């Protein structure tokens, strides 16, 4: 199955996954209101029901979810992405365009190859072993014809450690939301903290994930935050457990 046809039944939306993506991209569904975790849970349910893990769809799913998360984090961090987005809009547009063109090229080329293969349907080649007396004298290898240095060299190449791969172009979550949740809950024990404190010394990805965790705390009614002015300090404080999130929002 393709991930596109994964059926979702969420509060906000009910239908196949690809329709959800389309609606989000057309901004007919506000990504900020979509609990991405629910989509992940729906997929896990689906996996459980199927009883097997298809790696291909699983990767596809992870990539799509990662893209959604990235998009959502950018939306949420709208006002302060000076330091969070190191690409200028112009650069970002160029980068995206280049990637889209590449993907489109080879998808089209793949279509072409499939057509070619279909056009050759029914063409068979003979693959019968040669009569015994004609078989190639493959192993007629001359003694001492090979240089043992070739073996040492081959092994030397295998000893080389690969260089660290630059990941600047890919956002790879190295921190989990669960980790950041635990971190924030720890801080909440003090009653109140600023976002600045929560992400002190953290890299860009950790900051984004921390925002997720914060959003999650808010969704669960464990915390609220306030910001006195645009770009100002965000201060987070614990809510009284009895208060429902809706009331907090209203207040």
């Amino acid at each position, binding site marked *: 199955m393709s991930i596109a046809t994964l059926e979702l039944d969420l509060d906000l939306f009910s239908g196949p996954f690809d329709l959800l993506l389309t609606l989000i991209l057309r901004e007919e569904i506000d990504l*900020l209101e979509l609990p991405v975790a629910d989509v992940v849970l729906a997929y896990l349910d689906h996996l459980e029901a199927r009883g097997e893990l298809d*790696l*291909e769809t699983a*990767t596809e799913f992870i*990539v799509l979810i990662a893209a959604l998360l990235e998009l959502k984090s*950018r*939306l*949420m961090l*709208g*006002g302060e992405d000076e330091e969070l*987005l190191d690409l200028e*809009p*112009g650069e*970002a*547009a*160029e980068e*995206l*365009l280049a*990637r*889209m*063109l*590449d*993907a*489109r*090229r*080879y*998808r*089209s*080329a*793949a*279509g*072409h*190859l*499939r057509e*070619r*293969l*279909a*056009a*050759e*349907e*029914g*063409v*068979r*080649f*003979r693959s*019968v072993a*040669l*009569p015994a007396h004609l078989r190639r004298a493959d192993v007629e290898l001359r003694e001492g014809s090979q240089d043992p240095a070739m073996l040492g060299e081959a092994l030397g*190449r*295998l000893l*080389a*450690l*690969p260089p660290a*791969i630059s990941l600047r172009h890919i956002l790879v979550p190295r921190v989990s939301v669960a980790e950041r949740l635990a971190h924030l809950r720890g801080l909440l024990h003090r009653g109140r903290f600023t976002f600045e404190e929560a992400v002190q010394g953290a890299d860009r990805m950790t900051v984004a994930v921390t925002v997720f965790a914060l*959003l999650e705390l808010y969704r669960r009614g464990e915390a609220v*935050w*306030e*910001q006195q002015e*645009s770009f100002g300090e*965000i201060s987070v404080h614990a809510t009284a457990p009895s208060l429902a999130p809706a009331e907090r929002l209203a207040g």
Partner: protein
Amino acid sequence: MSEAVEEARVDADDGVEAPLEHVVEALLFLSGDPLSARELADATAADEEQIAAAVDLLAEQYAPGRRGLRLRELAGGFTLATDPASEPAARRLFSRPRVSTLTPAQAETLAIVAYLQPISRPEMTRIRGVSADSAVATLLERGLIEEAGRSQFGAVLYRTGTLFLKLFGLDTLKDLPDVAQWDPTPQEQAELRERLLRAGEARAGGGPGGVEE
């Protein structure tokens, strides 16, 4: 010898003589891989001009619809292949399908290898945006791609092999159409860039997404 192209014959050791096109036909029948004019010339002790004439003669005899086989020019050489019209009977007899079709992921990975070879798996993944691992494994297993050494960073590189050209009816990789033909027009690209730019600016300048109060 070259003045007598039409009468080129191959002397067998035992004195039997056969027209060159007969010998070429027999060699093509025996060989699993396409044979180049050079290989045919070496084996028959003829020159390439004579081989070309013999191949022309065979091509005529094996013209589509004249026999159950066809002479094809594939993977840099000549080879005999069945006419597709016999496929249903072949499938009944051998009960093995020819080549199963490619999944979209396999086709995409194969296209990337075909155009960008030699290329490593991490590079394929970067272009596809999703893992190419299982597609690469299947393509390797089917013999459509093969290893081609390692990159300077130690990653195994892959290329397409003879089987790829054979199965896809290609003589050389140059027969693949230019990838640029699938690019949008410069005007469309400009529009796309414009739209991406606007979206980026809107997002950058769009203020807090209603999270804070």
